[in-house]
């Protein structure tokens, strides 16, 4: 029986840009791994990006993982979130009835928005959501200029 997963349309043309970028990153990794049998499954956890005047918030849905299962790195203005979600363990004498949850390795990358204060990036993980705050440097924050 098919399981219905609702797909919501993305609201921003950034989507294709991010997807292209991730493909390029994946290609680089693949070239390193070629020749090696890749048996592990991989998937892309969904991501939201929210911006306000002071910061950009990157939210990634990573249920089933603790903060020790996730790695965040910034290199050359590229923020990369990676990790491995372990499969749910089947106890002894048990059998699967359904198996819908995707597990395995994942990597998601975004280019840091211009003007990110990369020294002040912070992250927290709660209830399966990873929230990374990218603060904006003072000079890129919008300012109101009063007419004298």
């Amino acid at each position, binding site marked *: 029986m098919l399981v219905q997963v609702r797909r919501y349309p993305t609201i*921003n043309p950034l989507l294709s840009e991010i997807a292209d970028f991730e493909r390029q990153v994946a290609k680089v990794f693949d070239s390193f791994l070629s020749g090696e049998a890749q048996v592990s499954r991989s998937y892309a956890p969904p991501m939201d990006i929210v911006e306000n005047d002071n910061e950009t918030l990157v939210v990634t849905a990573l249920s089933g993982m603790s903060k020790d299962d996730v790695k965040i790195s910034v290199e050359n203005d590229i923020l990369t979130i990676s990790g491995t979600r372990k499969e749910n363990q089947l106890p002894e004498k048990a059998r699967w009835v359904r198996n819908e949850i995707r597990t395995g390795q994942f990597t998601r990358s975004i280019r840091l928005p211009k003007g990110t204060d990369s020294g002040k990036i912070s992250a927290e993980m709660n*209830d399966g959501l990873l929230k990374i705050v990218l603060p904006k440097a003072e000079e890129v924050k919008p300012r109101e200029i009063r007419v004298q």
Partner: protein
Amino acid sequence: MSTNNDVTVVQQDNTAMIRKPDPVATVTPLADIYETPDAYVLLLDMPGATKDSISITMDQSTLVIRASVEGYVRENATLLFNEIPGVGFQRTFNLTDGIDRDNVDARYENGVLMVKLLKKEELKPREIRIQ
């Protein structure tokens, strides 16, 4: 659909219950289900659901799980990129007579809800020793 299962899955779109006014856009959480000799264990992926918002309701034939996600798009903020669907979860499972409705255990951790449905005593496998 497999037979002899005490837990089956229904498409929530077919259920009459969602006709109730519901301002919250819900998605169907993905689930892993396994059967042990004395129970069924459901593991549902509900990232962002707050523990207090999770409701598990059971009647004669169904188990309904609902939860909502606390919004993080504040006032004066713009959603630039959106892949995480909906702001809540809802899924309905059909139950047969084999489930002990008075013995349900639930736990929520790291965005995964675990619901353990114990089988009725008379349906558990028993070993009969030869005298």
